């Protein structure tokens, strides 16, 4: 396969992995974030944890694999982004640390203080990563303060606190709200009684909030944030590094793609449609359809961000010419080709057995079930 196509395919595949992560582990994080909000009693919280109990670990692998795939396919992004966003990424990791141990250890002891402490841990493990991912994406639109030297060593000059600017915080809230909504729609499918009612109500509320915030972010980009355009001619089919091009700032640049490739408009349309479906189906008490609506919304929102930035991945605010794009951060043609076939082979198999797992564990969990199985469940 030619290099240019492989570069595009890997942009799509990394997107697929991130969306896979957000759609699957997204609801685990949402359930975690809502643990103390929706679960009023210990049994209710255990119901919530056990709806995701058999699945969260497999779902989290989307995140780990996305990390590995970025390393393999976009080594420059892996290097520059993860060392630059050092504290943001460590914050995500430290928050995620609470999850495996929280799930596994929480219900092994009866002491309410023990359980309450782990519940806070699981809340942090759900809410903090969701927020930070959005903040990081928000900062991509504003540009990140990094440079590259002639040997491709990157230096990041910003601080962690600079990431927490108003626009990025709105993006963070979009992300947190969307994953919390996603968790709530999942709980609609898997619980009953009071808990189910609460999940239904909060799904509607969160979908409306996300719609408002997402629209706000869009208007903000239209009115107040400059985009980038590549100004030198580049050979997208050749091996190149981010040092081999020039880039300029252009007002409205982040919306250019929607006039250049009109089909891309489908992403925000899907996002808003998904949110609307979530509201309507939650109101109609159709949990599974609400979950599908929410999944569409998550997919649409992530695609909107990716499409708007294309071909950029990580713009530099210090010198736009250093900005990372899908054309100049990739591995060699050989590696991209091998990894493409590996992914083509394994992803369908993964989807197959994951689906089997969900199928086997389907159905609603009740507080009565938890009380009958208190030693063998989370």
């Amino acid at each position, binding site marked *: 396969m030619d290099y240019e196509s492989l570069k595009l395919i890997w942009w799509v595949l990394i997107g697929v992995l991130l969306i896979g992560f957000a759609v699957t582990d997204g609801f685990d994080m949402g359930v975690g974030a809502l643990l103390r909000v929706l679960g009023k009693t210990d049994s209710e919280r255990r119901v919530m944890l056990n709806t995701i*109990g*058999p*699945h969260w*670990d*497999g779902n*989290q*692998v989307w995140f*780990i*694999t996305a*990390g*590995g795939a970025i*390393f*393999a*396919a976009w*080594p420059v992004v*892996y*290097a*520059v982004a*993860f*060392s630059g966003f*050092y504290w943001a*990424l*460590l914050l995500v*990791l*430290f928050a995620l*640390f609470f*999850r*495996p*141990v929280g*799930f*596994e*250890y929480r219900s*092994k*002891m*009866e*002491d309410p203080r023990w359980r309450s402490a782990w519940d806070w841990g699981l809340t942090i493990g759900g809410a903090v990563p969701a927020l930070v991912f959005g903040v990081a994406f928000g900062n991509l639109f504003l540009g990140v303060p990094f440079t590259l030297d*002639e*040997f*491709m*060593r*990157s230096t990041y000059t910003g601080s962690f606190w600079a990431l927490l600017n108003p626009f990025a915080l709105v993006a963070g809230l979009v992300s947190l709200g969307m994953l919390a909504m996603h968790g709530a729609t999942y709980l609609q499918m898997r619980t009953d009684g009071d808990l189910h009612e609460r999940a239904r109500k909060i799904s509607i509320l969160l979908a409306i909030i996300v719609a408002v915030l997402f629209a706000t972010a869009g208007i903000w980009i239209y009115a107040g944030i400059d985009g980038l355009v590549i100004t030198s001619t580049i050979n997208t089919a050749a*091996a*190149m590094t981010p040092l081999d091009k020039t880039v300029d700032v252009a007002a409205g640049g982040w919306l250019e793609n929607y006039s250049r490739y009109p089909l891309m408009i489908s992403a925000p349309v899907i996002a808003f449609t998904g949110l609307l479906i979530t509201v309507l189906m939650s109101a109609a008490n159709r949990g599974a359809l609400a979950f599908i609506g929410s999944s569409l919304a998550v997919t649409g929102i992530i695609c909107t961000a990716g499409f708007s930035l294309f071909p950029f991945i990580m713009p530099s605010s210090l010198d736009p010419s250093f900005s990372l794009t899908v054309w100049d951060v990739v*591995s*060699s043609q*050989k*590696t991209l080709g*091998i*990894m493409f076939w*590996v992914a083509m082979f*394994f*992803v369908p198999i*993964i989807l197959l*057995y*994951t689906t089997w*797992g969900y199928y*086997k*564990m389907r159905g609603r969990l009740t507080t009565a079930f938890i009380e009958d199985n208190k030693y*063998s*469940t989370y």
Partner: protein
Amino acid sequence: MISESLVDLSRLQFAITALYHFLFVPLTLGLSFILAIMESAFVMTGKQVYQDMVKFWGKLFGINFALGVTTGLTMEFQFGTNWAYYSHYVGDIFGAPLAIEGLMAFFLESTFIGLFFFGWDRLTRVQHLMVTWLVAIGSNMSALWILIANGWMQNPVGAEFNYETMRMEMTDFAEVIFNPVAQVKFVHTVSAGYVTGAMFVLAISAYYMLKKRDLPFARRSFAIAASFGFASIISVIILGDESGYEIGDVQKTKLAAIEAEWHTQEPPADFTLIGFPNQETMETDYAVKIPGALGLIATRSVDEEIVGIKDLLKEHELRIRRGIEAYALLEKMRHGDKSDPTVAAFDALKDDLGYGLLLKKYTNNVVDATEEQIKQAAQDTIPKVAPMFWAFRLMVGLGFLMLILISLSFYYSTQHNVETKTWLLKALIISLPAPWIACEVGWFVAEFGRQPWSIAEVLPTHLSVSTRSVEDLYMSLAGFIGFYTLLLIVEMYLMIRFARLGPSSLHTGRYHFEQNHGAGAAIAQPQQAVADQA
């Protein structure tokens, strides 16, 4: 130039997080297969006790697994956060096994671990058995891919430097996968994991036997662990990875350091059993030697020689000098001279570019290095011998200790009289930390012995770090140490609590603490534990 404290702190952080992660990995590797064997016995015989065994040891497995997952997360991202230049320089090759590990192994292991714990009532017996086997296969597959990645750091085959992109690029994926160093490492490492799993089950079962509790349960667990452990310890020792130390220059240096082989000897070389290596004089004081043994062990032959440190040093100095020329040509090409003669001259020397880069520690410009700096850089290529020498002997010593213990356990278990050998049972309990110490020390030998390289002969460690501040490193290191220590305390607490409780923690009503033993005064305290948990 890159601050040395930044390099040291980054190394320390990686070492701590990796060694900590590896406290949990070997038990996962070994116990998962033991669970699969126990469950196979359950499905074949239909005896309830085997299912109880899977569930109880599975509970302990879960407590350990949770921390394995937690600490594993760090490892997937730490190359990017702290070793950014490394990630850029070798991501084209090194990233692939990591991504494949996710796709092929982590998904398998992590998806089925959920069904293992929660699927008992949802799956048929055969389906559940299959799930358990897939967990075991998945975790072992992940070991395969991460060791292919690590093996490539020790012996970087199937790759070539590309001056246009300023990085190493893959030339032959099959060579990377079938790297002999990786294959040897894989077998050695997973076998060490199996021994860890076996020692864990043996020691805890021995505890129940000494307490005369749940004997049928303990006996069967003991027997399975003893036979599994016996096969594994034989494999660890026979397939010890010293056979991987003759491949590649850095592996050779490592071997020379491990054996304090200062001079090249006439083959077959003598083996220094014990002594005090002295880096200053390049001699081993008070050495006790076994004639010919080293040659036999390391080369599996009587006529191949093992290169000594002094000869390696001379060779490395030559390669550093060639590396300086390679670096000068690289700069020329980076500044636009891509004429054929320049490229050809560079191609002839590029295998030594890495040696030239060693000088970056002393001078940014490499080409202006002084004689003294060149000598210093050559000295850097020899790791500190004494720690390597002792660490390796500690690992091997523990290996032989476990060989004796496990062989005896296996023998008496076949004789059905192991319960009467209280000395053996006590020795097993005391030796429980042995496999963990051996594993950690083994990794120390492998990675400390790789210095000063992060990628052998290609990329020096001090160039590999991310450009972060020393303060960043102090803070993140403190965060990791604090967080990990806290988690370790919690994990140990739960592990000891449930191990002492034994199968009674399943609440089936079939085991010791749930039955009325009349005047069982001695068990008052664990009974309290049951009550707490209930």
